[in-house]
Structure formats: C-alpha cells, structure tokens
C-alpha cells in the first residue's frame, strides 16, 4: 500500500512540476507570428524555389510583411507567381499594387577594354567594393564599371553575366526580374532599373561619368562629355544633363533615336530596334570612338545649356508639363 502511495505521490509531483515548467516555458518563449505572414504565404505558389532570394515562400512572406510595415513592396517579387501574385500580396497587406510597367536592369557603362584603357592593375580580393576603395580603380574613370562582378554575384536569377571580352556585365532581359539587387550591389551605381519600353525598345546613355568633358575623354573614348547635343536634338524634352552627364527619361522618350545619331561620343545606345538600313546599330568599335573625338572639341556646359532650353520647347509636338520631374 505504502509503495503504491509513494509511487503515486512521486510521479504525481514530477508530473506537476513538469507541467508547471512547460506552462512557464510556453508563456516565456511563446513565438507570436504575424497572422499576415500565413495569409501571404497562402497566396504564394509554395514552390519554395528560393528564386525570390529568400529561404522558401514563408521567408518571402515574412519579408513582404516587414516591407509592408515600411510602406512599400518595392524590390520584392515572386518570380514564379509574377505580377498577379504580387497584386494579391499587396491586397492582403493593404497596399496598392505597384505599377505593373515591366522594368529591366541596364548597365550604364560601355567602357570596354578598347574604349577605356587600363592605367593600373588591380590585385586583391575580386570585389568591386574593394576596388572602389582604391579611387578610380584600374582605369582613369572614377564612375565606370570596375569589372569584378559584384552584380553577377548579387543576381539570384542568373540574369547578369560578365562578358570576358568587354569586361562588362551583360543583362539577360528574359531572365531579369528588375529586382534591383545588382543595382544595390554596384558600388558606383552604374546599373539602372529602367522601364523596359515599347517592344522592349530603349534608348539609353551608356555612361555614368560625372567628370568634365575633357577629363572624361581622357579616361574613355565613349564617355558622355555633356556636350548637350542630345538635349538640343530631342523634341520631347526627354534628355537632361545633370552633373556633366546626360540622362534620357524613359517615360518621355519617344524612341526617335535622333540623339543616338547626334552623340559625338557614341555614348547613346538603342536596344532591340530592327537594324537600320544605312548604318547598323552595332556596338561602337574603336574607330567610331575616334570619330567622336575628332568632331567635337571640349564644350563648356554652361554655354551650351542656355540656347538648348528654348530650342527644345518650340517645335515640341507633344509637350509634357512634368519638366521638373526628377529622374529615377
């Protein structure tokens, strides 16, 4: 009898103590998960492919909720579900769906080995960030591509590759989701996430050099020298020159390609157009680069800017009011 009693008491008290510990631990270490995470995860494809750059769909859902608390889902995209899924996610999180105009990453540098001579040799960890700490790096251009491939490493979709011949990264437009990881990884901000454009056609200034014309020209044969010719020729006020660098506003650009022909440095490039009859839009060869140097002496930006403004205003057929709009 006694034995049974002891056993009951001992086991009972062990049970009680264990229950108490469990109860306290359950209180203390309780994990409160945001309900929204589960809801968002529900609409995701549950492929757990990791293509979004997060560990599985629940990881992505968590990131969405976190981003929503900050007010925007920018930069987050489920590559499997695409835009429709993201709209659903935005709906759950009480945000408006992002404008669905497709975008793509554009590398704004054409400083290939021929166009931009190497003046030094970099030795060290193969990382653009490391080379960036050494001033202008291997070339004399302090704004151009460093060529160590930080963007390639950042891309989760295998959409950006180094071209060993040019030493520049190339974007695979099919694969690019415009997530912006490469743009963030680039220490020089060369990569722009740009509107894909009508039929994927784009006209872009392939340069990021903010030095004055003479210095730019010394460093690279296809750099933008801020001569303002493109500004003058553009009928749609799509081109602005800021800090010695021309920029084409993708929303205003009507893809007329006049600027491309006008640019003495061949810094403006048109993508995905059918080949021109008289002059194919091929990547510039050193010969074309030299032609640019010959035709144009170093212009002074201030002088050129003054007549440029009225010139663009009068013949414009499609004047848009948003002149003050800052570029992205």
């Amino acid at each position, binding site marked *: 009898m006694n034995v049974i009693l002891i056993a009951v008491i001992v086991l009972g008290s062990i049970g009680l103590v264990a229950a108490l510990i469990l109860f306290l631990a359950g209180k203390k270490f309780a994990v409160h998960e945001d309900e929204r995470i589960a809801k968002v995860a529900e609409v995701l494809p549950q492929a757990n492919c990791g293509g979004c750059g997060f560990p599985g769909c629940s990881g992505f859902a968590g990131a969405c909720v976190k981003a929503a608390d900050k007010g925007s889902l920018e930069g987050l995209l489920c590559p499997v579900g695409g835009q429709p899924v993201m709209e659903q996610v935005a709906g759950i999180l009480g945000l408006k769906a992002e404008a669905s105009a497709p975008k793509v990453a554009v590398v704004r540098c054409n400083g290939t080995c021929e166009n931009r001579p190497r*003046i030094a040799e970099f030795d*060290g960890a193969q990382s653009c960030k490391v080379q960036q700490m*050494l*001033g202008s790096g291997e070339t004399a251009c*302090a704004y151009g591509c460093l060529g160590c491939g930080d963007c390639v490493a950042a891309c989760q979709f295998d959409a950006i590759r180094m071209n060993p011949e040019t030493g520049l990264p190339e974007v695979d437009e099919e694969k690019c989701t415009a997530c912006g990881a490469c743009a963030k990884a680039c220490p020089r901000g060369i990569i722009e996430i740009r509107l894909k454009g009508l039929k994927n056609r784009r006209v872009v200034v392939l340069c990021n050099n903010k*030095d004055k014309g003479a210095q730019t020209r010394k460093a690279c044969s296809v750099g933008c020298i801020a001569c303002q010719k493109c500004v003058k020729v553009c009928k749609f006020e799509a081109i602005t020159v800021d800090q010695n660098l021309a920029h084409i506003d993708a929303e205003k650009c009507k893809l007329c390609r006049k600027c491309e022909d006008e640019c003495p440095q061949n810094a403006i490039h048109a993508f995905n157009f059918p080949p021109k009859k008289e002059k194919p839009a091929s990547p510039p060869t050193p010969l074309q680069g030299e032609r640019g140097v010959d035709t144009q002496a170093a212009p002074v930006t201030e002088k050129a800017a003054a007549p440029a403004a009225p010139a663009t205003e009068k013949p414009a057929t499609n004047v848009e009011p948003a002149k003050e709009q800052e570029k992205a």
Partner: protein
Amino acid sequence: MKTFNIGGVHPAENKLSAASPIRVAAIPKQAVFSMFQHIGAPAVPVVKKGDTVKVGTLLGEAGKGLSVPVFSSVSGKVNKVDAVLDSSGTRRMAVVVDVEGDEWEETIDRSDKLVTFKDLGNITAAEVVNRIKAAGIVGMGGATFPTGIKLMPPPGTKAEAIIVNAVECEPYLTADHRLMLEKPEQILVGVQLIKHAVNCPKAFIGIEMNKPDAIKLLTDLLKEKAAQYPGIEVVPLKVKYPQGGEKQLIDAVIGRQVPAPPALPINVGAIVQNVGTVYAIYEAVTKNKPLIERIITVTGKSVKQPSNFLARIGTPMQQLIDEAGGLPADTGKIIGGGPMMGRALMSLEVPVTKGSSGLLLMTEKESRRGEVSPCIRCGKCVTACPMGLEPYLLASYTRLKDWDGCEKNDVTSCIECGSCAFTCPSNRPLLDNIRVAKQTVMSIIKARHMEAIAKK
C-alpha cells in the same frame, strides 16, 4: 620590455634610409594643395585663379565642423582651383600654384634658433591651442586627425598622460627617427607646449628598440636638462607591429586599454601625438609657421638613394623620386606611406600632403600578392590581430554577406593594420574583405541611428 598585450606581428624592418640625414627637397615648379588633406570636412578655397600667394598664405579656410585650414608652401600665382587627382585615386578640389621665387609671409620666423618654453613667457593654454588650430596642424603619422580638436578634451575627461608616438613601427619609414636625431630639443619644447595646452603633468615618448640612438639621445638630453624639461620620460618599447597604433601605444606605455568605439583615448586619460606633429606644433607656436612642409621618407629596395626629405607640401612625388635617384625600371607598386597601411598610388603626379609619411617603391616581384589558397583554419590571424578579433570569421561572414554576424563580432573595432593578411599562410585577402564589411556595417549602423532619430 614594454609592449602591447594582444597580438602583433614582426615584419622585416628594412629601414634603408635610417642613416641618411634629412635633405631639403627642391622647391617644385608647380605645387598642388589638396583641400582634403585631413579627416573631416574639406577646406574651402579662398583664393582664385591669378591670385598671387606667398609661402604661408592661406589658401583654404577650415570647413564646417571637423576641419583645418590649408596654407601655401610656395610663392607664385594660382594657376587654377579645380578637381585634381590626389593620393586617394580620385579627383578632388585643390589649389594649383605656379611657383615664382620663394617669398615668405613676414609673420613667419625663419631663423633656426631654438625658442624654449621659457622664452614664450606667460603664454596661455588657450593661446597654444589657437595657434595650433590656426596653423592647420593635423596628425602627421598618417591619420591626419586635426590636432587642435584632440587638444581640447571633451567635458568630463582629463588628460593624465601625453604619449608621443615615436614608434614608427611601419617598415621602411625613417622620417620620425631622423627627426628625433636632428631636432631633439625642438621636440622636447613641443612636448612641453602640449603638456601646457592640456594641463597635463606627465608625458611619455614611446620609441621602439630598433632606434637605440634616438632613445639614447633623448634620454641623455632629459637627464642633462632635467630641470628644463620636467615630467617627460622616454619609454623604450619592444619592436612589434602595430605598436604605432594609437590604442596599442597607450596599452604599451601606460597599460590602459581604450574600450571599443565610440570611446576615445581621452576616456582613459591619454592623448597621443605623433613626433612629427609635436615638431610641427613647436614650429607653429614658437615660429608662427603654419604646416607647410614635412619630412618624408623616399625608399624602396631598388631606389638608388633611399632618403629622408624635408619637402614642401604640394611637391609632386615624381620630383622627390628624381632627387632620390629616379624611378627604378622594375617598379611595380608605388605606395604612399608604409607597406603595412600605406595606399597604392596610381600616378606619381600626386602631391605630398600633410599626412605623407613616406613614399615606397616596390619592385614588380615584391608587389604581387601570392596565390590565394583555401583557409586552413590555422588561427594565425586570430593570434596576430592586435584588437582580439577573428579575421577569418569576419572575412567569411563578408563572403556570406552576413552583416549582422560581422557587427556582433566587432568588425567596427578593426584598425585595418593588416596583421591578419600579413600573417595568413594561405595569402587570403582578409583585410580587403574586412574593410568591405566594416564599411557596410558602419553604414548600417548609421542608417539605424538616423532612423532612431527620425522616430523621435
């Protein structure tokens, strides 16, 4: 023998120019004065193209916040005020002066006569600091922190020990060594001035044992004139890199460790000044001479005459190399500063600045890093790190972009001395990666800080 307590390495000393006396370098034909010769806000140019300047004329006044003025070291006409390539490898604002003659501002005392502390009469502490600030003096060991700011301890702190950094632990460099041998008394007067400026009774001069002549000279001088220079002591230190690091030197000399940032040396009662800075302070206070020249070692195994020059700030490096026997044909790397912490320069056009302690030419063969092989987890970097960090771990966190892990493992404490990469048997670019991590983590911390402020 005193030294610091954690880590350290012993690179080959290669003090090739230790025996060559300081030579006065020729005045350049054109001098370039960068507005970015110090840490903090750049100086603001106050001259314009065509202006005539003399030696000692103000070219750029101190910018807002942490900054110092920049003076001309030559006389002539201002050629341009424009962005010019400097030692950072990028174009930054500078004043370029075409040299004509050598005319000095009248206010500068150009005599060699020693002015003692007594000669200055009842100069106040504030006056000393003001003259130092007005002369544009910065830390001349290479960090280029404005000296005037350092001599104004923040409220709640008190200087208990002045430590003069005469360690010169970088291999090859001998500028400080030669300065001590040639201007010992001036340095002692300078130390007195600093002591006076911060009202501190005790000063130590830390010198490594590989400069026995300097130790002997200063010790004897202090013994001989004990009454004239009270409270100054020479501390011989064991040769170990990076003893010249501010925190390491404080640990070695007075045995106190400065906690992790944001703590400053003054939080443990120490003010460290480089011996070159001390000399500049002497000249500024007693001779009213702004910081317009400095001693720079031009050296390298293939250099014909490794020398120490007294060069005007703004002199192109090319000219100093010509004076030291010309650029050797097999040069592979040009380093501004010493081999452990110096910057590789892209061009010889860059001018001498306030922080240029040396110019080192390495041969092509010496310049190349060895082939990188996998980490064998030997732990030698951990043993070598003078800050007690784990470089191998930080480097692999960087590779994984785990900035959280980097921050938790105190990446921000790294002083970038390079001991880890120096010692790594696998030739891994540890410091390259750690710098990336440090930069990234610093910006993350800053962003977090800004966010916290915005929330309030």
